[in-house]
């Protein structure tokens, strides 16, 4: 069975090749198509994704890509997705296998809105092969999601009852954990942000005095709790709610330049994030 890492690699390689094909020009469109089709054939996962869908479908690609007759070419997309997929696959093989066919010559025969070769080719490839690329990318992503879900299911479940915890808690099913308590680092970060932000409050313009005073109280309350030996979770949550509301209501006005530095919206967000982390 294919692994998640293998799928990641296939996904990246396939997207790179597809992108090269979709942006190709007159000089490299044939070689890009050849590499693209070769990769499909040589990669078992993609090969299966395509061939499991199209091998039992009886559909002539010329019913989708109207390439016969003396006039210009046209596209008539079939309703059935498997037929559409088969038509795209067979048409690409046809272009590569016929001596007198090339991507640029084919592209030129379809209606186009530009006079530049690159645009004509890219417009053609968007119509003629992009749906197959999307189909393959979806198949890879779907398989990755399935593997992720399976890995989650097989991961050991851990039940722990925790009373008061003022530090970092790590847990795993088996084996041992080396844990470094970094609460003091978080507190230092929060204190630093609080000092910076409290100093900047008076510099925030277009906000009423009442709102400024209110958020200042909340920030000072957090400062007091965080430096106390037994911080009160409920008080911190209340103050945090006030800070969040202020940051949400006045997000565009929070940037203040100070003599010592600048306070930005990102500082407020970082403070909220660190407080949430500390409280939880």
């Amino acid at each position, binding site marked *: 069975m294919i692994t998640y890492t293998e799928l*990641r690699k296939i*996904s*990246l390689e396939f*997207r*790179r090749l*597809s*992108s090269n094909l*979709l*942006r190709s020009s007159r000089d490299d469109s044939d070689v890009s198509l050849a590499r693209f089709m070769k990769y499909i054939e040589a990669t078992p996962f993609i090969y299966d994704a395509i061939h499991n869908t199209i091998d039992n479908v009886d559909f002539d690609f010329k019913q989708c890509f109207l390439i016969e007759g003396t006039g210009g070419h046209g596209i008539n997309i079939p309703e059935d997705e498997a037929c559409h997929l088969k038509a795209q696959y067979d048409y690409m093989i046809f272009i590569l296998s016929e001596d007198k066919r090339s991507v640029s010559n084919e592209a030129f025969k379809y209606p186009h809105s530009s006079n530049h070769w690159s645009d004509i080719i890219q417009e053609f490839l968007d119509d003629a092969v*992009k749906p197959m*690329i*999307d189909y393959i*990318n*979806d198949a890879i*992503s779907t398989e*990755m*999601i399935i593997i992720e879900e399976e890995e989650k299911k097989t991961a050991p479940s851990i039940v722990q009852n925790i009373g008061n915890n003022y530090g970092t808690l790590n847990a795993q099913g088996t084996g041992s954990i080396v844990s470094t308590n970094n609460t003091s680092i978080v507190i230092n970060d929060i204190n630093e942000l609080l000092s910076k932000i409290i100093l900047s409050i008076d510099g925030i313009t277009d906000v009423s005095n009442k709102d400024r005073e209110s958020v200042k109280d909340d920030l000072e309350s957090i400062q007091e709790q965080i430096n106390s030996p037994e911080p009160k979770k409920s008080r911190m949550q209340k103050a945090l709610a006030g800070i969040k509301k202020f940051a949400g209501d006045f*997000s*565009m006005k*929070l940037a203040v330049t100070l003599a010592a530095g600048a306070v*930005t*919206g*990102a500082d407020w*967000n970082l403070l909220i994030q660190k407080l949430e982390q500390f409280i939880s």
Partner: protein
Amino acid sequence: MNISFTIEGDSEGFVTFECPFCGSEFKLQAGEYQNENEPLEDLFCPYCGLTREKNTFLSKDVIVQAQALAENYLIEELNKVFKKMSKSLNKPHGIIKMKYKPLKKVVTKELKDKDTTEVEFKCDHCNHRVKVLYCAGASKIFCPYCGVDI
């Protein structure tokens, strides 16, 4: 000749880009996108995962702004030339007279990104950030910088 202009990011400095393949919009942090220590050549679309030169990911608004500024530059240059020409022709006692009416400049607007409902993701592989519209579990999100799934 260089014409430069500024795009104001959202409150966290994220600027909007648009995928040339699927047309979807996403946001990248301006500082990470313009980091001189890690110059970028290509970007990946976080939604469809396809890759192309970074300039092709500029949004329609940015392209319109660049075209308007280029047009204004051209208008300014033409106005200068014709103004000078009309001054030299419209001398007293001159036989040929010239009427000069300057061309009007195209209106340009300030490019500003608003805070929207996108979710921020950070790539474990390269540590860059991206903001995308994400429906949980519906599809994969790819890192615009290194292309791996996030």
